[in-house]
């Protein structure tokens, strides 16, 4: 979004009541077109505000016990908001603004609310959570982006909940099953979305009902909804068990690909998502192996290992895609620039990266159960969410979750100045200008927050700043522990903070530091100055970064420094840049075509991500249905005796000899084990099919239909197979043997690399025809 546009949006938000006729017409038309952010009419909610305000005095008279008592009787929006406001005033000494109540009401009616950074989303969620419980939608889960926020918010808001007569709990990675069960038992539970998802998956694999921790999923309030529902949605949460006995071919393969050179031995695709050997590279590898044919049937295992090793070498970069810490490889979340906890690459890639870094390999995982964040969130009966940037993903929220966006005006108008991008021809010029700009602002004492794209860049910039005599705190995936503290001080006088992407989402930057001692001095200098060292893959993430400045009417400014050598531009729009753009002597480019090219590149990146999301989703629909169908079946096996009855029918005599209790336990355990195993095998088979299903388009078949055609019969064979295997195991098992499936271990692979961006990379038949004719015309023109 152009800076002017950003200001315009803000203006639109606050100026709702006094719009001109043409503006009103325009907004009508946008609503008619169902543009995201226009479909929710706040007027009916606004009408309740006077009634809420009217109850304020009366509620102030009550003592705490009477307030709690009243809270237990509230059953409409007015009561809920009025009592919620009073409880917040007493519990936190913060009286929620009208806009926060509006947000709470929108959340109560199942919307995604867009509220600017610093408008008090956390408190808004409390009133909404309370309302949902009162309206019979409890228990409520508040899904956060990480454990830190889950715990902080739960503890911070506890006094309010107490006054409202509700219990609140939180779950983090470190929680024991006991603690989890207790936390989920509360009226409101704060939990990171991945913990909630893993608890769900684990519950799906228990062999005893008593081992469950999570109750039925009822209502979810999703914090940072765009991040969780869109960015993370396509990452599957995977429960994996260790695979025993597989020796490690990847380490051996690593030695083979070491020393190969890009361009000569292998080629990386333009989109940076795939790599392939050239003939020379293949010959080199085969020569090292003693002139074998890697593509012969017996060498396929080795070929797979070599491909994976090559992927690790050519496509994954240290300090960009992962960091090495404590003798292990830790993935960096590409959207958030922080370490993705317990996330692993699938299919041996993790081991390959460990081999590349000379680390010993951790055990490989085999997928036991999987659910995408999207499917998990869909399990809740009621879903609502809040974020600072929802409108830009409004179409996707509607497409994937049937959620509408309600734009809540900010309490005080935003006065942040968004300057136009500064585009430089080369990266070196950009960095020079960037450091000069930071040094200048720092010299005046103005706090600066620099957002970089990856860890490497943040460290390079920190070194550059140190050389220029500017001290700075660096916040990246490597020191995420101090994250909240560093971010909280980013607004202090003279502070320079270099951070990767969206690290520290959810923590406020107050002017003058966390205690706001120098607030006036900093405000006078123009407030927090946010500088982006490059455009991100989506405008939304850019806007999140800008949003760190100018909270609650504070002064602030933002600017992005872009170079034509940035990866975003190189990857997506190399053709759109004019051969000799207009520029100043210092390398600052002032060419409209270049401005367009940068935005074009960003739009392509957004489109690619959207397409990835949609494809993952389209193919996961059928898997999710099968998961649900099997979960039902499993539930019955778990809670009834059907497995034992089946065995009794088949082996009446043998069953007579076994103690009925032992039989029913053993039958259940065996059947569940085989069900889980077969499901894991089924998932592996489906990913195999998924890999090459796009080739069916060549036979004028629809890949998605073909995927269903393969997935459904495979699933239909599953149930009889469970029975067959259960019977077989029963026949060969002695019943004193205490026999258990492998202990499940939790890992979370990032599975994006295996999926194609395009469902049909060859285009439609017409595309191919036109492309072929075009090629012929061009080559004819040349000759």
């Amino acid at each position, binding site marked *: 979004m152009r800076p002017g546009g950003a200001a315009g949006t803000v203006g639109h938000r606050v100026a709702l009541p006094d719009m001109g006729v043409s503006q009103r017409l325009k907004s009508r038309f946008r609503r008619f077109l169902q543009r995201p952010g226009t479909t929710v009419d706040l007027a009916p909610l606004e009408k309740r505000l006077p009634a809420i305000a009217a109850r304020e005095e009366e509620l102030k008279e009550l003592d705490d016990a009477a307030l709690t008592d009243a809270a237990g009787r509230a059953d409409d929006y007015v009561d809920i908001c009025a009592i919620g406001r009073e409880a917040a005033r007493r519990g936190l000494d913060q009286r929620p603004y009208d806009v926060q109540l509006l947000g709470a009401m929108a959340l109560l009616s199942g919307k995604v609310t867009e509220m600017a950074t610093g408008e008090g989303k956390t408190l808004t969620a409390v009133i909404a959570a309370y309302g949902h419980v009162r309206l019979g939608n409890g228990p409520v889960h508040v899904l956060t982006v990480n454990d830190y926020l889950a715990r902080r918010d739960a503890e911070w808001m506890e006094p309010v909940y107490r006054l409202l007569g509700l219990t609140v709990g939180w779950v983090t990675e470190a929680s024991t099953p006991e603690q989890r069960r207790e936390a989920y038992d509360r009226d409101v539970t704060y939990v990171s979305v991945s913990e909630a998802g893993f608890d769900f998956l684990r519950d799906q694999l228990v062999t005893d009902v008593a081992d469950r921790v999570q109750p039925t999923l009822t209502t979810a309030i999703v914090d940072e909804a765009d991040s969780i529902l869109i960015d993370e949605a396509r990452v599957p949460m995977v429960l994996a068990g260790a695979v025993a006995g597989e020796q490690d071919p990847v380490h051996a393969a690593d030695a083979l690909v070491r020393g190969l050179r890009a361009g000569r031995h292998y080629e990386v695709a333009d989109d940076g998502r795939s790599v392939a050997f050239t003939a020379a590279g293949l010959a080199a590898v085969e020569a090292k192996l003693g002139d074998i044919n890697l593509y012969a049937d017996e060498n396929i295992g080795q070929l*797979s290992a070599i491909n*994976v090793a090559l992927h690790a070498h050519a496509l994954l970069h240290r300090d960009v895609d992962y960091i090495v810490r404590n003798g292990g490889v830790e993935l960096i979340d590409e959207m958030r620039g922080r370490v993705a906890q317990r996330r692993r690459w699938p299919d041996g890639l993790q081991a390959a990266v460990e081999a590349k870094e000379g680390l010993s390999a951790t055990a490989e995982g085999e997928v036991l159960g999987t659910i995408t964040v999207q499917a998990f969130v869909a399990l809740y009966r009621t879903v609502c969410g809040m974020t600072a940037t929802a409108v830009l993903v409004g179409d996707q929220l509607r497409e994937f979750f049937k959620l509408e966006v309600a734009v809540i005006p900010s309490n005080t108008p935003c006065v942040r100045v968004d300057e136009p991008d500064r585009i430089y021809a080369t990266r070196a010029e950009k960095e020079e200008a960037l450091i000069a700009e930071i040094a200048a602002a720092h010299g005046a004492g103005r706090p600066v927050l620099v957002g970089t794209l990856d860890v490497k860049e943040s460290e390079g910039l920190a070194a550059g700043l140190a050389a220029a005599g500017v001290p700075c705190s660096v916040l990246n995936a490597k020191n995420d522990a101090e994250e909240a503290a560093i971010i909280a001080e980013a607004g202090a006088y003279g502070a320079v903070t270099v951070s990767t992407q969206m690290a520290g989402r959810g923590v406020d930057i107050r002017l003058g530091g966390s205690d706001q001692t120098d607030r006036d001095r900093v405000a006078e200098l123009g407030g927090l100055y946010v500088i982006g060292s490059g455009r991100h893959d989506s405008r939304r993430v850019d806007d999140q970064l800008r949003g760190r400045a100018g909270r609650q009417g504070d002064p602030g400014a933002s600017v992005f420094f872009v170079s034509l050598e940035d990866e975003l531009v190189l990857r997506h729009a190399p053709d759109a840049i004019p051969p000799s753009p207009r520029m100043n002597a210092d390398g600052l480019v002032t060419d409209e075509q270049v401005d367009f090219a940068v935005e074009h590149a960003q739009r392509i990146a957004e489109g690619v991500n959207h397409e990835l999301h949609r494809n993952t989703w389209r193919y996961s629909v059928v898997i999710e249905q099968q998961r649900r169908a099997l979960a039902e079946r499993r539930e019955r096996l778990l809670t009834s005796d059907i497995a034992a009855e089946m065995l009794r029918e088949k082996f009446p005599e043998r069953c007579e000899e076994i103690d009925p209790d032992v039989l029913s336990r053993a039958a259940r355990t065996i059947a569940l084990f085989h069900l889980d195993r077969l499901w894991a095998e089924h998932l592996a088979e489906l990913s195999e*099919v998924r890999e090459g299903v796009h080739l069916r388009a060549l036979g004028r078949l629809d890949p998605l*239909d073909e995927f269903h055609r393969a997935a459904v019969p495979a*699933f*239909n064979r599953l149930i009889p197979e469970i029975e067959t295997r259960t019977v077989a195991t029963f026949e060969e098992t002695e019943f004193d043997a205490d026999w258990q499936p492998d202990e499940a271990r939790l890992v979370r692979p990032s599975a994006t690399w295996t999926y194609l961006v395009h469902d049909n990379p060859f285009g439609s038949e017409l595309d191919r025809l036109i492309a072929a004719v075009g090629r012929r015309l061009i080559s004819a023109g040349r000759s």
Partner: protein
Amino acid sequence: MLSAFLSAFRTPDLRKKLLFTVGIVAIYRLGATLPSPGVSYGNVQKCIDVMQGEQSGVFTLLNLFSGGALLQLSVFALGIMPYITASIILQLLTVVIPRLEQLRKEGQAGQAKITQYTRYLTLGLGILQASAFVALARSGQLFNNMCDQFPIIPQTDLPTWLTLVTLVITMTAGTGMVMWLGELITDRGVGNGMSVLIFTSIAARLPSEGWSIKTSKGWGMFFLVLALVLVVITAVVFIEQAQRRIPVQYAKRMIGRKMYGGTSTYIPLKVNQAGVIPVIFASSLLYLPQLALQFFDQNNPGDVQAWVQNNLATPSSPTYIAVYFLLIIFFTYFYVSITFNPTEVADNMKKYGGFVPGIRPGKPTAEYLDFILSRITLPGALYLGIVSILPNFFFIWLDNQQYQNFPFGGTAVLIMVGVGLETVKQIESQLMQRNYEGFLR
């Protein structure tokens, strides 16, 4: 297939989709028979009767696609053709105009804009075509000036320009409406909207054409033709389904890798890889001599002209049939070679780590694919040729009067079977997805 439909009707949301599609099709057919304001329905019918059996020339194919609505100048006279044309033009323009190319790369959002442009262009084309046909109708050329005694757009009290403008507006609006109906089917019904509407148009003419055989030849012939048509359709369905599967393996997984019978990933090469396009190309090309004849003096033909008249413009002549057949074979090879680029496919496989077992990636794979493809294309081409010339034999056998509007042959059968199969497949796949309950209860 019938059972698929039955169980589809038992699945609530599929039933809704099917009924929705049927409803849209009904609206489409209603609009296709609804006369536009200012057109004399009676006179149009008389003209069509006069035309029966005459060669109506270039409009035949268009008329086929619009289900006979074109000659009737109904509200949906232009049918889906302007939309198809607009899509093709926009596709072509993306090669020429960089701005469009960039939009296309921007994914969903850009594609939405291109779709929007397509819609505008459709309306533009609609205005052009509507004006052209209204002008033709008014001058009587729509029916080759053979029924000038019955004016299609008779004089009324209203000024003529108003009638004509109303007609153009009505037909253009009709085009927009058809476009919308098509998109509705794609979004909320079953099948691809454009294909379903074309299918409807062609199928709509079957009963009346069949009946005309009965009236002219009697019941015996009627049932004989019906039986033959069924045999042809069965054969077409059979061959349309035939494919050769080239197994492909992806070597990049280290765990859970297991051969599932080796059939889970493959490239399906169809026997009829080219579809119906070669037939359309060939018949369009064979219209040219006919068209050319119109420019010459019809009453005093020269030698060449007479030869062309007797051989290339007469569907029953052996020369015509032979040329038609050879053209189809040529275009089949041509089209397959253009739309299936073995090098590109091999590159794509290589890029994502796939290969045909036993064959090295890159050039050897491309050569292998090329070899298989050229072998499989021969039966495909012969099949297309035979199916397409069948109606010409029908024609010799029935007599000259029936050919032009004969809907059971060549293009029509291929299109109908193609669309039918595609739609049934989609229904089946959706059905499979929704029917776990069946075995789990």
